[in-house]
């Protein structure tokens, strides 16, 4: 029984119900890239890690950089979804699911990078059978498992009412939607249960997310290598992760907006607000980077300064100054005055930040290893096609997972948009009035008495 609201959000159902040729071309291209990556990995699995550019002393390179980078991107979902939900920011409504999907998909890819990096991947079960909790890698394993579980749950719970909408529409995949909808009918009790569960998850997922990238940073800071053994690493990595996460969301938003014609839902105001957040994170990232390097420079410890200068003026200067350009100069130039070009400028800044943050991870991993303390015969690290193909394949795999999700589920949360239309306005008005003098607090949410499950809002 279509009604006015169905028509109104037809664009949100379109990606699920219609599959154009562009979809098949895209999937085909992605599969080719993934195949290239898989072939590269097969060569590596067969012959050994010698097919990469790694050597003594640079025994960690692209793969570990990718690992830190992808896990960093995974902070996208947490920030937008959880923090904005908790702070009742109304503008989050079309963005939350997109962000949550990024988190879940990219965590798989990030974890896979470490497995690709292993010299004996056939023994990866040793981590489970003989794991040592004293090792930061085990902290990683635990933390990332917790985050993966939590963020999958946090993606699934708000998905349930949307899956129920899909279940009740005529269309394909009835079994999938019926199973996943868990019998959702929008009753009072079900709404209460879901509310509470989402609220608990929103609170729980934030410290888990903070722990994830902190623990990833501990892989480096728990060694005694120059410019790794730094107390700032925990907060630095988390800030960098949130930074790259916001940039990733903006890029995803821009692509989805264009490809699926969702300009009505993803408006310049959303890009503007995220752009402001991105600007704040740019400055925060710069502040932490500045503190880190100034401390090293002022202390003038010889081992640290060797690494320092190799980044500033030595062999790594293109990567270092490239990082500064992409992470600071370009975002500042774009984001300080958005004017009427909110979408264009934030997207430019975001693409720049994604590149810059990858360079930042590279700058952390490789220069320290390239400058050993003892007079070791050194060499310059040059990645081979294997590492390039693996990186490209990983990106392609992530995008493929994302595209498949968009094909199966609404990428913009339909029930949350409807809730925003129907009750959001009044709720915000009441809240605003309660801040002003002379008014009492607004009525508590969740007042019952509405019929029909699609119209009934879920309040948080």
């Amino acid at each position: 029984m279509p009604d006015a609201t169905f028509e109104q959000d037809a664009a949100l159902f379109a990606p699920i119900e219609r599959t154009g040729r562009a979809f098949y071309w895209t999937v085909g291209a992605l599969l080719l890239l993934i195949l290239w990556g898989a072939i590269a990995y097969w060569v590596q699995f067969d012959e050994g890690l010698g097919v990469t550019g790694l050597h003594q002393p640079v025994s960690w390179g692209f793969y570990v950089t990718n690992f830190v980078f992808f896990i960093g991107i995974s902070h996208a979902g947490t920030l937008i979804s959880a923090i904005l939900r908790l702070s009742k920011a109304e503008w989050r409504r079309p963005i939350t699911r997109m962000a949550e999907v990024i988190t879940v998909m990219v965590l798989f890819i990030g974890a896979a990078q470490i497995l690709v990096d292993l010299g004996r991947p056939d023994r990866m079960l040793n981590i489970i059978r003989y794991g040592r909790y004293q090792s930061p890698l085990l902290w990683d394993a635990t933390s990332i498992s917790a985050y993966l579980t939590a963020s999958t749950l946090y993606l699934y719970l708000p998905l349930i009412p949307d899956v129920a909408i899909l279940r009740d529409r005529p269309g394909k995949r009835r079994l999938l939607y019926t199973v996943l909808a868990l019998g959702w009918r929008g009753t009072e009790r079900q709404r209460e249960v879901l509310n509470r569960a989402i609220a608990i998850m929103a609170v729980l997922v934030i410290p888990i997310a903070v722990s994830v990238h902190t623990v990833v940073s501990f892989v480096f800071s728990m060694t005694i290598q120059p410019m790794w053994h730094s107390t700032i690493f925990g907060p630095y990595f988390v800030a960098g992760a949130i930074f790259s996460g916001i940039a990733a969301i903006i890029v995803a938003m821009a692509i989805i907006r264009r490809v699926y014609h969702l300009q009505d839902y993803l408006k310049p105001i959303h890009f503007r607000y995220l752009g402001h957040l991105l600007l704040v994170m740019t400055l925060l990232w710069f502040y932490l980077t500045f503190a880190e390097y100034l401390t090293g420079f002022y202390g003038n410890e010889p081992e640290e300064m060797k690494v320092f200068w190799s980044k500033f003026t030595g062999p790594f200067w293109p990567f270092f100054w490239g990082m500064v350009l992409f992470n600071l100069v370009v975002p500042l130039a774009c984001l300080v005055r958005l004017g009427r070009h909110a979408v264009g400028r934030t997207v430019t800044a975001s693409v720049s930040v994604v590149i810059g943050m990858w360079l930042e991870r590279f700058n952390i991993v490789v220069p320290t290893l390239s400058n050993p303390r003892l007079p070791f015969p050194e060499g310059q690290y040059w990645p081979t096609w294997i590492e390039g193909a693996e990186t490209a394949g990983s990106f392609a795999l992530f995008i493929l997972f994302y595209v498949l999700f968009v094909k199966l589920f609404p990428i913009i949360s339909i029930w949350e948009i409807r809730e925003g239309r129907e009750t959001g306005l009044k709720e915000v008005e009441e809240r605003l009035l309660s801040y002003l003098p002379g008014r009492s607090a607004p009525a508590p949410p969740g007042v019952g008495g509405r019929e029909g499950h699609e119209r009934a809002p879920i309040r948080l």
Partner: protein
Amino acid sequence: MALWGMVIDLDRCTGCQACVMACKAENNVPAVGAREASRGRTISWMQVLTEETEERLRFLPRPCLQCDDPPCTKVCPVYATYRNPEGIVAQVYARCIGCRFCMAACPYNAKYFNWYRYQKEAPGQNPDVSVRTKGVVEKCTFCHHRLQKARERAGVEKRELGPGEYVTACAEACPARAIVFGDLSDPRSEVARLARSPRAFRLLEELGTKPKVVYLAERESDGRA
């Protein structure tokens, strides 16, 4: 309980690398080939580094320093490297998953990785030492197999292990007798005596790794680097 350690007298070392060759032969350390060597993948459990300051050039034979507080064992995720009660930092090839965390953590770069399968089992190798597969980390073990053999012999003959019965290949081979090996916990052993010398210093001592390879500087006043 013994505490195995080594003293290397830098005043005697001529940089001839007999220790390197003896170690390679004794421990089946693979020759990686010229191409791999040019890519920086030489495996050399005992490696002679050259340290140059304004005043002098110095050869630094560097085995695994067998630290008493090893940064490498702290970070291994699978118990593939650990410090045994006699002070030797062991490396378990069958357990190693090749994550190379220990390599990233070692400040002396004493750990090496098998980037390819550099050798198969073949005649002419030392049968007491396992041949490593690709993808695992390896390092100097103070010729631990020699300790096991000496202990077995002593056990069969129902006596204690005598001094000088267990000595590493590098110490045995050095023509200048620059490398002295023995039990640091035995105050009468030559190693313990030399380790107390005023010329003694430890590499990167300030890092707190407590290495058990002690170097003797060329002159008394030249305590460190």
